[in-house]
């Protein structure tokens, strides 16, 4: 993976614009640890090109350059960079979104908040067995497969 520590810091500056906080949910940077981010991008080369392009886009973006780099541009300017990036390099932008969404929504803190309970024995996950009564109407339909 060709992304440096500084690159990761730059990307982190954008995480909370992608998933901000609200009354109930924490922002992305609070949930996604640097270690997890690094692990995700180092176990596959799938994200290499997209994330490198995202970082170079940010570095080259005139606002970021004029202001002395992405770490000092304000929130509005960073949001504008993302909007521009989404329209100019949509595939690379999707790569960034995939990493952030995957890591954010795979955390148990988030699962709890969105009420995502995968335990088979939980009351919420009960599902009734198939009841043939539902076939009452459709069973009256005359067979219509072609006899050839």
């Amino acid at each position, binding site marked *: 993976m060709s992304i440096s520590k500084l690159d990761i810091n730059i990307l982190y500056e954008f995480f909370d*614009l992608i998933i901000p906080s609200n009354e109930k949910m924490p922002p992305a940077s609070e949930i996604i640890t640097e270690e997890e981010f690094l692990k995700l991008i180092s176990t596959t080369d799938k994200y290499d090109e997209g994330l490198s392009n995202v970082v170079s886009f940010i570095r080259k973006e005139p606002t970021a350059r004029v202001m002395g780099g992405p770490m000092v541009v304000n929130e509005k300017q960073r949001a504008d960079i*993302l909007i521009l990036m989404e329209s100019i390099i949509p595939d690379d932008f999707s790569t960034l979104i995939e990493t952030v969404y995957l890591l954010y*929504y*795979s955390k148990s803190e988030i699962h709890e908040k969105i009420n995502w309970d995968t335990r088979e024995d939980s009351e919420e996950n009960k599902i*009734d067995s*198939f009841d043939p009564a539902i076939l009452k109407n*459709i069973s009256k339909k005359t067979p219509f497969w072609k*006899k050839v």
Partner: protein
Amino acid sequence: MPKNLPFVDIIIVGSGASGGACAWKLSGSGAKVVLLEQGNWFDQNDYPGDSNDWEIVSKNSFSFNPNIRKLDSDYKILDENSDIHPLMYNAVGGSTHHWTAHTPRFHPSDFRVKTLDGVADDWPISYWDLEEYYDLNDVMMGCSGINGDPANPPRSPRPMPPLPLGKDGERIAQAADRLGWHWWPSDSYQASENYKGRIGWNNQGTFASKNKWKSIASTDHTYITPAIENGLEVRTNCAVQNISVDNNGNLTGVIYVDSKGTHYFQEVGKVILACNGIGTPRILLNSKSKKFPNGLANSSGLVGKNLMYHPYASATGLFNENDINYTLGPLANIIIVQEFYETDPKRDFLRGYSFQMNRSHGPAHTALGSGSGGVSIPWGKDHHDEFSKRFKKYLGFAIISEDLPELHNRVEIDENLKDKNGIPLPKVFYKTSENTKKLLNHGLKSAEKLLKEAGSYDVIKQPLIETAGWHLMGTAKMGIDPNTSVVDSECQTHDVENLYIIDGSVFTTSAAVNPTPTIQAIALRTADKILKG
């Protein structure tokens, strides 16, 4: 020089849906049968379904796409020229490790497309030739379902009751009833109750824990393990490079490479290819000789041609109610709708389609738009509101279209690009036809109608799912005439005696349903024909 190995009666190459079924049927017959598989055994403990990061893994090392997964057993598929990306898994059990196990059968009419609609070709066999093998496969793989579907011929009792429809499935069923449309609980090779040592599972909790992994049938446990008990020998991590013939074109053996890079020549009486619609033409095209300069069994020039995928579209309905959890129950083995299955002269396209109902995904996949037209939840200040509108609140239909065979849709090999075993990479060319576009468009409109009838307030439509190349068919067509087909009605190649093909490559046409029960029925029938001599 490859190491010579002593003669065996039968080699099966590939241990997926077809290879596994065929191996079981041939095992115990007294013949020495060896199964060669380029991948390894799949360790149930590697299954990531009950970990929090399951959705991460499923986008990476457990991706359906070998070009993303890049495991040692995978080969790269050059698919830049294909509208649809081919998917598969390479291990003992093949792509049945990844599949959904939605298992409808072909209709009798699917074998007679030329007669009925004047396009493509009729198969040289009929539904009725396969019926007993469909039945046998249903028992071996374990089919959950129920008889009485008016869209299909009556069939043998299903070994298990259907998987639950859930409140959302019932809602769709009632909506279809109101429209007067066909629907039926899906046949599925996922065990709805305990079956032959497998634990029944209705997807409470959505993702399978490790011990539920086997509730979805894969041929490593349904067929290959019992076949080993009958004397089958399985050689894993063995990638077949090519098939050898003598100067007269008689089959002599196969050349394969093991994980150490050692080459072997396995002398053999019969070879059965079961490497799927891409892997099989790849081996044949790489098996050139003086007698067969264009690749083996390719005198018709049709090896690799006529690739069919079943192009998919999807329509996803969003629902308001909070009383239904749309993630609960199997992801996609719920309901099949075949109201628009046959050709209707009033429509502007030939052949037809099925709907396969599917449900909401987990949170990360929901955010990324899986199952909802690939449309991600927007980033930024509205993100959480939009997420809660979608999460656990969508269901949809995959529209499975019949894909008609076209010569320009094809698999070739690239002699300059090879995998780690020195086998040329397959190159895939595929363009979606005008007929398919019209058909999918019609499908989207009817899916929208059904979803609205079921109460959906908004429908997201995806006209062609590029990532849906899970059905690989047609690249070594079955037929009577050696000039216009590769194998005969018993799956033996016209050109080379004792060389058989049993995977989806042999499909003459594709029908508009998932193909695997038909692939396996053909594999079992071929084995039976070989046994009966």
